[in-house]
């Protein structure tokens, strides 16, 4: 068997091994799980090393100052490892603080625009006059839903006044409709993904056609051993 063909067999095996998990946790799904975690971790390490090398070659090795900064960063990176030291474990908080600080800073400045200002502005800019009535109606509905849902989440106000009850009810209904539609909408992409795997198993192009040769046999072996074992255990009892 050529290496490429063996690769296709591996692909078919791992695909089906994942789906045996739907039946129950079993040795095949466990093989898939551990191989995946091992290989993915290895991939991550390789990827990061490659990235580090590119950073060094592409950017930081150019000037003396940058080189020193790079080495300093690597030294700080090693401090993470002190997490395992009983005496000096607190040293790992330094790289942690640098990381958290930088990204909290980035988050503060990006979130305020992308998630707050932009959204508030596009809601305030919804027009209800000078456009066709259907769009005006939709804009009005959008605005009311946004305001009511925002109000619904208030934490520190006793929601006793009379207007709260209808507002909260409306917000909850709107949320349920929204959540339902998002759920239903996603069914399409999830089914499409699985259809993609079925096409792989059946060797439909662009997938390697050899897959359909392996599919029935691998499926038979996996299912046969699993069901056979469970049947055997059941009858023995």
């Amino acid at each position, binding site marked *: 068997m050529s290496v490429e063909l063996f690769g296709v067999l591996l692909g078919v095996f791992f695909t089906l091994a994942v789906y045996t998990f*739907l*039946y129950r946790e079993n040795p095949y799904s466990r093989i898939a799980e551990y191989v995946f975690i091992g290989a993915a971790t290895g991939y991550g390490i390789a990827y990061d090393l490659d990235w580090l090398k590119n950073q060094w070659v592409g950017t930081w090795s150019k000037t003396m100052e940058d080189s020193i900064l790079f080495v300093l960063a690597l030294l700080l990176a090693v401090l993470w490892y002190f997490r395992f030291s009983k005496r000096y474990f607190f040293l790992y908080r330094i790289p942690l603080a640098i990381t958290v600080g930088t990204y909290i800073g980035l988050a503060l400045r990006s979130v305020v625009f992308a998630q707050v200002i932009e959204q508030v502005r596009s809601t305030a800019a919804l027009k209800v006059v000078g456009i066709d009535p259907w769009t005006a109606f939709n804009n009005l509905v959008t605005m009311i839903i946004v305001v009511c849902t925002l109000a619904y989440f208030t934490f520190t106000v006793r929601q006793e006044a009379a207007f709260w009850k209808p507002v909260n009810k409306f917000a909850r209904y709107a949320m349920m409709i929204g959540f339902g539609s998002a759920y239903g909408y996603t069914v*399409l992409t999830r089914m*499409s993904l699985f*259809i*993609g795997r079925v*096409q792989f198993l059946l060797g*439909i192009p*662009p997938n390697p056609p050899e897959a359909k040769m392996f599919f029935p046999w691998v499926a038979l072996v996996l299912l046969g051993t699993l069901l056979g074992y469970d049947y055997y255990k059941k009858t023995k009892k």
Partner: protein
Amino acid sequence: MATAPRIWEKLETIDARIIYLILWIVILWPFIYPIGLPVSIGSYSLAYAKAIDDLPAGSIVVVSFDFSLGGLGELYPIAIATLHHLFTKPVKIVIIAIWSDGAIVADMVLKDLKPDQPPYNRKYGEDWIFLGYAPGGETAMAALGKDFWSTLPTDYYYKKHVSTYPIMQNLRSANDVTLLVSLETGTPGADEWVRQWYVPYKVPMIVGCIGVMAPTVAPYLAGGQVKGMLPGLRAAAEYELIIGRKGLGVASADALSTSHMVFVIFVILGNISYFMRRRSK
């Protein structure tokens, strides 16, 4: 009538594995024995096909592969059908990629279609050309818009300078492009093309994308920047029916219909059993 409620109770707490098995069957079945369930054709798909049909002879179309191998499941049928449609029209086709894997994907699709052979018989370098990957994401789009020759100086297959190909003589900037086709899974994609090509050069575009992208592209359809859109496998099927070339999309449409219908049937069954059980209490 002690048995009837038990049926409902059983149905309500049905073993999920039965649901899984039924899903496997209804999705596998149509690929082995195609059913040919009816597909309704939406306005977005019609507009997409029309944008290509309306192209005047000799106009230049840029097809950009803005996705990686992961997007193949949904975009492969769209890419095949779109290029088939284009190769049967008397237009010049320039294929590029903004994603690094896009070049690999485009190569796969072109190898599958073989445009230089019948029924297309289109000459490479004269009727169509494949320029490969332009690195830099949105920056690359902007650079291409300004100057094609310097951004993608050689073609993908022969690594020869673009000036040696007749097709490139009339293509220097986005101003020379009649239509842009973007096949995409995410960023950079439609947002960036609109910013870099529509806003400055008014190049109209059509988009083939994965299903989840549809809501982000839809505003551009309303705004007129995007002329047509094919979101996902379902739209691929519609498009294949419009151009009369049934392929992977139509085959998948059956599986989509059966799986969605099974979903709805399960929801209905779940509700019937819920109410019957409650009534019997």
